[in-house]
């Protein structure tokens, strides 16, 4: 999986928000608010390019004190919501 072209993480009034700015995302017409963990995952996914639920869960475990099971659940929930809203492919 990867993040679709044209989506950008912005700091809006102190919060993390995904906006569509690129040519392929210009008609997104929505803003997606992320909590700190989701924003961290987004940046990781952006840096990695191609990612899987497992690769992001592993990265999460290395950075934060979470159990592998908890990391897997959190990442899966986050990715599911990104898939629903259409910002990854």
């Amino acid at each position, binding site marked *: 999986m990867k993040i679709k072209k044209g989506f950008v993480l912005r700091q809006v009034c102190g*919060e993390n*928000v995904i906006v569509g*700015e690129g040519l392929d995302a210009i008609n997104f017409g929505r803003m997606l608010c992320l909590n700190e963990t989701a924003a961290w995952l987004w940046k990781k996914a952006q840096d990695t390019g191609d990612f899987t639920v497992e690769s992001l869960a592993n990265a999460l475990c290395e950075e934060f004190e979470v159990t592998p099971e908890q990391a897997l659940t959190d990442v899966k929930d986050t990715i599911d919501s990104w898939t629903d809203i259409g910002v990854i492919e």
Partner: protein
Amino acid sequence: MTETRYYTVAEHLLGVKADDIFLPLMQNYEPFRHDISGKTDVERPPLLFTLTVTEGRITDYIEEYSQEDEGQDTICGHTAGNDPVFEFRWDGKTAGWLVCTPDYRQGTLHLSGHDTKAALDNSLMILFAMASSCTGTALFHAAAVSLDGRGYMFLGKSGTGKSTHASLWLKNIPGSGLMNDDNPAVRVKPDGTAVVYGTPWSGKTPCYRNVSAPLGGIVLLSQAPYNSITRLKGIGAYAAVVPSISGKRWDSRIADGLHDTENALATSIPVWHLDCLPDAEAARLCKETITV
């Protein structure tokens, strides 16, 4: 005879190099004329861009995106050498092609002979919006009124009644005045305050006033069968402001600059959402709530 004239819009200096024959089409710019003769570089505002007006057509370019608005098409693209291009069409007929340098400091408008006035205005608006985007400046699609030394902007989709609401202020609120009816500019100053300016572009209303005022509030309008106003904060305020600002957001340099301006406005300027009827009570409710 070709000459270069200068104008200041929102304290930015713009140059237009064109033949005299285009002068009668530029009456709306007269209140913004700026005489730089005898002034040194330090005595005048820095030059934001120069537009050169010429006749003719351009050879092919690569299309990126096209936008349709009230019978007018704007096609954005780039030349083989990666210079931004904007083609303006009315009812399918091309009025002109604007070719810019990637930093939007220079633009050349190639006129076809159709709708020359509209092509000139659009070219200057585009260059202004793009070149100023990294300087805390934004060109809005809004109506702006003044009251007691402050400026207020009304935003909303086309057809929502921005001009109607502004005219309701003028009729019902003594002391209010129209600053601009379609495209005011805003600058966020280094100290975080914001100023709203009249511009030479004002849609169908000939309101070309070289005026400015500290920005006191921004109101997003929606049509409703009642009048009600609420304060928007944080992301809600940001989301209200962004769609009303002109820009080419797939150019990341421009998007970054506009984001900084939008974020500063959403943080420091009161933003409101007014559900309203086109009546005097809407104007009074709005005025009572947003002016302090």
